């Protein structure tokens, strides 16, 4: 750990504020204690800091001028470039300047730049539909390199923007990345092909899903609130989506699939462009999106085999909101 605390400046671009709200749930002792413990000094945060108006502006100006060192720049929310490239869809209040221009200027000063959430990583929900505000991420337009800063951007530590994707990301993803930066422990090869930290992106959301037994047998739920696998009919993309979502608990006890609804791959660029989130598109009865790394022929063969081998218990429970059939007694001495 470095001795002096690292200065963190947080900006909310075209955001819902949900990444901050998520981060606030970090730690049994609370976020403030976590920041203190690990040497993170919040220079200014739009939802949390005392400084408002002229005082806040003073901090932004001092950082932009290089007078206050900026160790970590966190940006939450899409960059709204419109209308017509003017950035007027988000003017930083009290400054007469667009958020896009502020982010550009501040990113040039940052030792590390972190995109918190899918919006600042790839564009996210505001870039959905016809993308009315010309929204993009810091270094991506959806899955295409570019964005506000361009593919060539490197923070002064030599890294591209670190994309802590997720809508909203798990508080642990954000916090663990920030703390790893205090230890200078994130290098280029700790990021995946979309510059997402591999500490969460090397897993699939499917890993650890509580519905795994239903998945194994392709015992599927046909309506929401049933206990079966959500992949075949209800749109679940957990077998394709990056994230250790089901290896952690969210808010003390939940995950999306555990709560009975489908994974919408919110850590992926372009998740906002999907249609019918809660239905699985099929061609010839086969789901269009097969599990990552899974050859199609094998999927077809294994699915057919496992369906035919599905135990009655699994079959019945898949179609019910509560467990209908408990596991059999089994051998008393395993």
């Amino acid at each position, binding site marked *: 750990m470095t001795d002096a605390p690292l200065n963190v400046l947080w900006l909310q671009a075209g955001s819902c504020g949900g990444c901050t*709200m*998520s981060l606030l749930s970090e730690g*049994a002792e609370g976020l403030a204690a976590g920041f203190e413990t690990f040497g993170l000094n919040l220079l200014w945060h739009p*939802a949390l800091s005392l400084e408002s108006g002229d005082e806040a502006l003073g901090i932004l100006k001092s950082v932009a001028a290089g007078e206050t060192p900026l160790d970590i720049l966190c940006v939450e929310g*899409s960059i709204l470039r419109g209308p017509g490239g003017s950035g007027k869809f988000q003017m930083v209040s009290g400054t007469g300047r667009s958020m896009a221009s502020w982010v550009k200027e501040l990113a040039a000063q940052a030792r590390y730049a972190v995109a918190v959430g899918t919006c600042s990583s790839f564009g996210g929900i505001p870039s959905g539909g016809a993308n009315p505000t010309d929204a993009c991420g810091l270094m991506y337009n959806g899955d295409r390199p570019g964005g506000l800063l361009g593919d060539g951007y490197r923070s002064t530590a030599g890294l591209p923007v670190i994309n802590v994707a997720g809508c909203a990301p798990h508080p642990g993803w954000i916090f663990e990345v920030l703390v790893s930066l205090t230890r200078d422990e994130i290098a280029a090869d700790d990021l995946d092909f979309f510059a997402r930290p591999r500490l969460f992106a090397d897993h699939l959301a499917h890993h650890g899903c509580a519905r795994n037994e239903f998945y194994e047998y392709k015992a599927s739920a046909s309506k929401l609130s049933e206990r079966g696998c959500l992949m075949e009919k209800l749109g679940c993309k957990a077998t394709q989506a990056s994230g250790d979502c089901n290896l952690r608990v*969210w*808010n003390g006890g939940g995950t999306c699939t555990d709560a009975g*609804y489908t994974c919408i791959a919110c850590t992926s660029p372009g998740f906002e462009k999907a249609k019918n989130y809660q239905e699985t598109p099929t061609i010839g009865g086969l789901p269009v999106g097969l599990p990552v790394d899974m050859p199609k022929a094998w999927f077809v063969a294994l699915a057919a085999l496992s369906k035919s081998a599905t135990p009655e218990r699994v079959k019945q429970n898949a179609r019910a909101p509560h467990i209908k059939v408990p596991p059999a007694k089994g051998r008393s001495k395993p």
Partner: protein
Amino acid sequence: MTRLIVGPFNRVEGDLEVTLETAEGQVTGARVNAPMYRGFEQILEGKTPGDALVIAPRICGICSVSQSVAASRALADAMGLVPAPNGRLAANLVSAAENLSDHLSHFYLFFMPDFTRDIYGDRSWYEEAVQRFAAVKGAASKDFLPARNRLLHVVGILAGKWPHSLAIQPGGTTKAVDQGERVRLLAVLSETRRFLERVVFGDDLETVLALETPEALTAWSEEKPHSDFSRFLAMSRDLRLSELGKTPGRLMSYGAYPDEGALWLSGGLWEGGAVKSLDLNEVSEDPASAWLSGGVGHPFDSDTLPDAEKDGAYSWCKAPRLQGGVVEVGALARQAIAGNALAQKLLHEDGSTVHGRVVARLIEAARLIVQMGRWVDEFRLKDEFCVHGEMPDEVQALGTTEAARGSLGHWMVLKGGVIHRYQIVAPTTWNFSPRDASGTPGPLEQALVGAPVREGEASPVAVQHIVRSFDPCMVCTVH
């Protein structure tokens, strides 16, 4: 006359700029600008109706569940679907957990830090305020954040995660609760209740909820000064916050939390000191001062289309009006309209002020935790949590709820099986609206007039108290 532009105006959940005209030490006019536009209503057009459950909640990371509830109700209204009773209870609980968390987040993280400003260095309570309520590092936020995390386990158990869940559906919720989960919910609620009694109120909730007049509240807080609520009440008396930030006092609530057959908190219009019935056909939105095209209209008949160069506009926010007039929304409105005696007496004695808004929020917090326990008990664990319906191709439908900071409505029109129009009017759209075509300022713009401005203040502290007393959510305001 002097002109002051206050921004970046923080701790308001999003972007806000306030332009003040001041003369002789007070505000003489105000213009409120919501300077960020993302175009959610445009993004929703052409989508499958059910996709509103994915997109609409992402308008807001702090009212996410409220947006989810409003969207699910619009879809249920379209299908003529009544949610399963268990699903109704679960949605109430998730929504109540968010609202309670938001009320306390507002109090501890957004509102109270302003009392730690240097300008109050001469007040008797200043040192304690700094120790307790300093932004981020104060002792109170260190007490509160773990309690908030624990409270949000209600959402983890019932809806997977917060913010942005898909658990709340038109016919109920996707998660069927089992016996163990019921006990876990009760454990979270009892811990949250102890936090409220130990730290926030310093007394039994029953005692607090029995305080029915402003005088009784004052007497209680002087007798029991060592809670955060009493600390606020002492500062409020000293700074006369019951005279600050007055709106015209016409208040609205859609009502919230469906119980069997009726809403737990009934809705209506507070006008002339009495509760009247509310007709949502009389809601209109006026884009006169917004960088948006079009004219005045009901949300079923209006669009939201940007016009960044529009003359005379100064915000991305439309001006919603009821029967053509300004209304204020929020916890004070909700509690007074639902019949809470203390909220009604505060309005009768002072009108709607900074003091009353904060008091009503904390009283509602106490009421919520008690009511949540009842809802958990009402689950019939062997029954279903979600029912299903058929979506018509052509229909117009309305979903309403109360977010922590006030009334939220989703007006949806389907054509050819897809969303043709989706108009959202959020709580702070009402409270922070700009001027309408007749030049009438919005509630905050009116509340700011008369606010004191001390010598040399660039971001006047009284203005900050007033703005934050509404618990604004700017990301909902313009979406």
